[in-house]
Every structure is written in C-alpha cells, then in structure tokens.
C-alpha cells in the first residue's frame, strides 16, 4: 500500500470469542485509584 500503513495486528475482535477468563488484574489496583484505564493491563489467561 502506498498511502496507508497498518501498525498493529488489529485483533481485538478475535479476543472476544476466547476472552473473559477473569485472571487479569482489576484495573484500579495498579497505580491509579482515581481513574480507569483498562488497556494498559496485561492479559493473564493460562496458555
């Protein structure tokens, strides 16, 4: 492509089907305590 460069895998939809195991951290526990940012969490699903 000449005009567009895709930077990442764009795979969010795929994660919906297999996701939801609940093993990842509750988001407010990390540093904030006053706001919510979920996207900086890590996935911790058992391989």
């Amino acid at each position: 492509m000449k005009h567009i460069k895709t930077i990442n895998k764009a795979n969010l939809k795929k994660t919906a089907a297999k996701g939801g195991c609940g093993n990842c951290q509750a988001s407010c526990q990390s540093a904030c305590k006053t706001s919510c940012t979920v996207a900086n969490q890590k996935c911790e699903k058992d391989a």
Partner: protein
Amino acid sequence: MIHCFRLKGFNIVLDVHTGGVHIVDDITYEMLENISLPLDDDCKKGVIEKLKGKYTIDELEECFDEIVELYNDGILFSEDDYEKFADYAVASPVKAMCLHIAHDCNLRCKYCFASTGDFGEGRKLMDLDIGKAAIDFLLEKSGDRKNLELDFFGGEPLMNFDVVKEIVKYARSKEKEFGKTFRFTITTNGLLLTDDKIDFINKEMSNVVLSIDGRKEVNDRMRVRVDGSGSYDSIIDKYKVLVSKRDKSKDYYVRGTYTKYNLDFSNDVIHLYECGFDQVSVEPVMGDEKESFAITEGDLDKICNEYDILVDKLTEIREKGGFCNFFHFMLDLNQGPCAIKRLRGCGSGNEYVAVTPDGDIYPCHQFVGIEKFKMGNLHNKTFNMDIKNMFAKTHIYAKDDCKDCWAKFYCSGGCNANNYLYEGDILKAHKLSCKIQRKRLECAILMNVMKELEKQS
C-alpha cells in the same frame, strides 16, 4: 467507527472495533474525514468531486481503493458486534479487594478524597479479626479465580503495619488449601517507611504505590503534615532506598497528583525520573470543583498541551537510551486485555470491593462512606447482591456516552465513582475526565506508533 487524529506530524487512524491503528498520508486523511459507509460508487464520486481541486483524480482513486481494501479486510470502518457480549455481563466472583487498614493518616493532603484519612467516619485502625474476615470473604467469594488481589490502603497503611503483616501471614497460610495466590499491593505516603518495612514490602508486595507529587515545592504545597510543613524531604530518600532494593520483576510506581497549581506537570514527571524513578504516574486531582486547586474546563487546553510536551520529553529520554514508563501512556497495541475485559472497566462493586475498619463493604475505595452504596458488612455476614448486580452491568453499552465513544475499548467506560460524584449517576460519563482520558490515549497511541516505526526501520 474510526477515529482520526493528527499529532506531532503523524496522521493516525484508529479503527475502533478491531483496535487497528493505521498511519496515512495527508490525502487519505482528508478523504477519511469526508467519507462514511457504504463505500460505494456514489461515495467515491462524491469525495473525488470534493477533493479534486487539491489532488489528482488518479491519486484520489488510488487512495479510495486502498481504503476499500482495508474495509474488505475488516480493519477499517469495522462493525460494532460486541453488544451481544455485553448482554452476558453477569455478576463475577469477587477477586480483588481494597483493604482500608487505617482510616487515619499522618498527612493532611489538601486534595484528599478521604477527608484527610478518615473517610468522614472517624479515625480508626482495622483490627486483625476484620482483616482475617476480609481474607476469608475473598477466599469464599472468588469462585474459580486463582489470582486474588489485595491492596492495603488507607488513610496511611503504615500506621497499622503490624496488622498488615499478620494479614499477609494469614492469607499466605491459606493459599495452598484453597489453591489461590494472593497478590498484595500497598499504597503509602512514605513517612513511616523504615528498613524493616521496606524489606517486608519488597518481599511480599507485588506492587507498591509511593505517593509523591513531583518537585519539592509542588509536593509540599499539597502534601503537608498536621503542622502544615511539607513532606518531600522526609520521603524522597526512603523511596530511593525502597526502589533500589526492589526486585526488578516486581512493580512499583511513584504516583503524584497534579492540580490547578501545577498544570506544567510534565516537569514533575521528569523530576521524578531524574530522581531515579522509572515507573511514574502523575494524575489529575479529583474532588470538589469549587476548591481553588480543582481542575476545571478552562484548564483543559493547557492540560492537553502538557501531555504533548510530556510526549516530547519522554521521547527524548528514550532516544538517549533512557527509560521512563508513564502509567497513563502504557498501551500494548498488539496484546492488551481481551475485548470482554474491556467492556467493563475497573470491576468496582462486582469483582472488586473495598472493606473499611468497621468491616463495611463498598463497591470501591471511592464509594466508602456513601451510605446508599454500602453493600454489606463482614461482622454480620451481609452482602447485597442487588448492588453487585447493578455494578456488574456497568459496561460500555449501558453507558450512553461510552457506546459511541472512540476510546471505549481503552477506557472501558471510565470511573464509576467519578461518574457518580460529578454527574450523579454511575452510568453517566464525567465529561472532564473523558477529555483528559482521550487526550492521554491519543498520546499513548502515538508513542506506540513511533516505537513501532523505529523498530521497523
């Protein structure tokens, strides 16, 4: 849905529902701003007609074809098909807890949301029995979740550190029997840190949050003792010792708050970095908008600009071979949490609760003391499932502002507590927080783009 933004010379396009991030040239950017589905002949003709004075027809056609190709690949203008998952939002096991080990504090920070430590409920320390009951509650309510999170919070948790130690011991003694692992974290103002406490924290706590606002004059304006004197000089060296002795595999953050008085907070981030800390979080103050230090609508331009400045400063550090992780710019564009997690955000009141020294249970630390959100009590073993079910349903598709917001899969619907405190409804997004959140996300996406391009070249 797509979100297009220009930042630091990059034209960035986010495909909201796949998380796809594209960089495009000016002509494509302009075209994307002028088209919407369906990408049919009429659409093509219309946009070419509109832009043909600026670009050649050949170029415009080429561009349109590339856009259609990505659309056909499903990574541009992709469809929102998540709402069906949101419908499954049901009550989850409780697996994370904020334990208010001390409703008392040895500082009188002017912006404290906990009424300088006691949450408006009187100064009190948690006794060991309540602490143990809290552990038992978590073990009982956590279902099949293996990782249990317990944050020692206050007030100031070091004011009740013997009980902290005993609770850790008690919880560890139960791990094998229940097949669970506890992850402890602690949030402290640092005043009472000693070598012993540092060693214990470094051994047992998977994360430690060290409160400090940045530059001495900034910190000491807000983070004062009972007599009004500042706290910076008493804590900075202790934090350095703690971090220098800490295992690199474990997390920590130095964590500050910015207010109207230091809207140039990028200097505070850099100050902390220059003190030797590489994990930094500096966040906007939350609280009564009438306070003189409160952030208001009129500060937003300055704040957004400051995040841009911070991007430059962090980039400079990185280019010189240094490393400084700024909490709100952390983002993994390839492997963040799954979409299901992103639908629901912090989990307050559902998988996360707070427990007070009296054993009262609330949806999270920021709801403590608000009577109508009291979920139960550990003494009399009550736990109100209606409140829990209500919080279980606070996903982005239940929040009108969020379902059409481009940031929904990163922010996940914001902070329920802020929504309630400012807008009177846990489902109503707090506009000021949203604006700051979206700006931070644009910066975070940009920093990832820059890193990725560097890697590729």
